[in-house]
């Protein structure tokens, strides 16, 4: 383990303890474990708030287990923990509150392992596909929990199909990356959405119901409200303590970056810089949620944790604020509520487009945020909610549109 990885593993360990403590303090140990077990056989398609399915304790327990498994995968494959792995781990933690479970993630990872074997490469080369690729977990849950195959048959079908979609992730992911040229941070969201179109197509052709249903916790507890602010303070202090004299220098370095994939702030601005940036983003986004009175539930905590994780891998205040503004203005202009599920999730996840603002300026960023809200409200239905990173899917389409136009203008400018 490299020297700079130690504080990151410590902070991740502390985060898992905070998660478990808050969950168990809320619901008790036994109830949390029972909730966790209940979640394993529950549908995972968008939007299923696990804090309602398994209670706060069960959902937090599920998130803790998923985080531990992710860290184990990173450590055992010999990959360093840094920007992309931090982003992936917090994304997994967040989405384990509304869709990902160890049960539905396993076959996806196995599919990526098979792809690596076939390509003759070590698994560590493909680990990011495996970690982010768990976005397609609901495909597995669909067979286990939704179509009534039941027990063993459901597991066999789910694990079979899950392995197949996992197998395709690396091949498709690389092509999708070239489409938007790294301006959509959740590239696997676009990839999973693309694969999801085919999966949902087959489901629909077989007369299976893939309509979107929303299970949304409107009565979040104090544990929900405290989670991300606590993480943010923890990471912020960690960064300040590690390098108290270089806070501004590091932040300046990060703010100069466009954030385009791959922008590893642990590499470019030190561990301390990345930690402070994560903390700042977490506090700002949580502050906005509190200000508008949004629900701190499974899906929104997922959004906050993803934003927080990508504070080490592409997002910072300069490139996210214009995106935020675009989503808020679009929400108000179309007469929607700022705290309704669609707009609040779009607010948090639209920052997948942060590199557009970082590279081409706040006006482009604002426009991208605006267009994103329009797109994301439609795109979940296309893939039947089997791609948990629906905002990554819509963001990828939006980024591709912007990149195509910018490229055309650039190529034809005299």
């Amino acid at each position, binding site marked *: 383990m490299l020297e700079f990885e130690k504080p990151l593993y410590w902070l991740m360990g502390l985060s898992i303890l905070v998660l478990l403590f808050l969950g168990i303090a809320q619901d008790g140990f036994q109830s949390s474990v029972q909730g966790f077990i209940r979640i394993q056989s529950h549908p995972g398609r968008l939007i299923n708030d696990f804090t309602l399915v398994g209670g706060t304790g069960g959902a937090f327990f599920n998130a803790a287990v998923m985080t531990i498994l992710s860290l184990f995968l990173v450590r055992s494959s010999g990959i360093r923990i840094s920007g992309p792995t931090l982003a992936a781990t917090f994304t997994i933690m967040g989405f384990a509150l509304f869709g990902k479970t160890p049960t539905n993630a396993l076959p996806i990872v196995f599919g990526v392992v098979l792809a690596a074997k076939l390509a003759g490469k070590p698994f560590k080369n493909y680990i990011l596909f495996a970690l982010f690729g768990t976005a397609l977990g609901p495909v597995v849950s669909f067979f286990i929990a939704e179509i009534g195959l039941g027990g063993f048959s459901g597991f066999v079908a789910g694990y079979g199909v899950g392995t197949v979609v996992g197998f395709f992730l690396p091949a498709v992911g690389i092509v999708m990356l*070239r489409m938007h040229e790294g301006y959509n941070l959740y590239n696997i969201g676009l990839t999973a959405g693309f694969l999801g179109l085919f999966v949902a197509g087959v489901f629909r052709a077989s007369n299976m119901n893939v309509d979107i249903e929303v299970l949304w916790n409107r009565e979040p507890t104090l544990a929900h409200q405290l989670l991300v602010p606590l993480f943010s303070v923890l990471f912020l202090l960690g960064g300040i303590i590690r390098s108290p004299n270089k806070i501004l220098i590091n932040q300046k370095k990060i703010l100069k970056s466009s954030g385009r994939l791959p922008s590893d702030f642990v590499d470019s601005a030190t561990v301390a810089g990345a930690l402070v940036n994560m903390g700042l983003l977490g506090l700002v986004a949580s502050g906005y949620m509190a200000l508008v009175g949004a629900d701190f539930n499974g899906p929104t905590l997922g959004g906050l944790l993803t934003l927080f994780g990508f504070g080490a891998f592409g997002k910072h205040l300069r490139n996210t604020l214009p995106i935020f503004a675009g989503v808020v203005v679009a929400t108000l202009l179309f007469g929607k509520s700022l705290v309704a599920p669609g707009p609040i999730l779009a607010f948090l996840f639209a920052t997948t487009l942060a590199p557009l603002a970082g590279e081409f300026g706040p006006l482009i960023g604002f426009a991208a945020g605006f267009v994103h809200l329009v797109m994301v409200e439609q795109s979940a239905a296309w893939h039947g909610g089997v791609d948990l990173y629906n905002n990554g899917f819509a963001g990828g389409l939006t980024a591709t549109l912007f990149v195509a136009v910018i490229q055309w203008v650039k190529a034809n400018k005299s």
Partner: protein
Amino acid sequence: MKQKEYIMHLLAEVSNYVLEAMPSRMVISLHQESDGLHLAVIDNNERPEDELESMRTALNSASRPEMAEYYGSMGGTDLVGHARLSLIGWQIKHADVTRRDKGTKIDLWLGSDRFDSRQFNIPSEEKL
């Protein structure tokens, strides 16, 4: 990635970087050795020392197999953003960046250490 595609990605990304400074000359030399490959790119653009240093840092970044395999595939495919040498750095064995006459020479080693790149330089005006 197959060798041909791999080389094309590297060539395109490093050419993209060099051409951003709009040199009037660029020479690319590619040599396949039995145990590796050497790529030399020479231009007639004088770069300040701090740029040369940042090029060295980007091209000699630590091994990141997870980044090389995934994001390294973007090398040479960018049409909108700036060229990024770190995409190459994750994928090669070693790189040297040196000042040559009135230009810059970038040596990329992808396996072989035996190749002597000193024989390559921008042809003089008379030879052109």
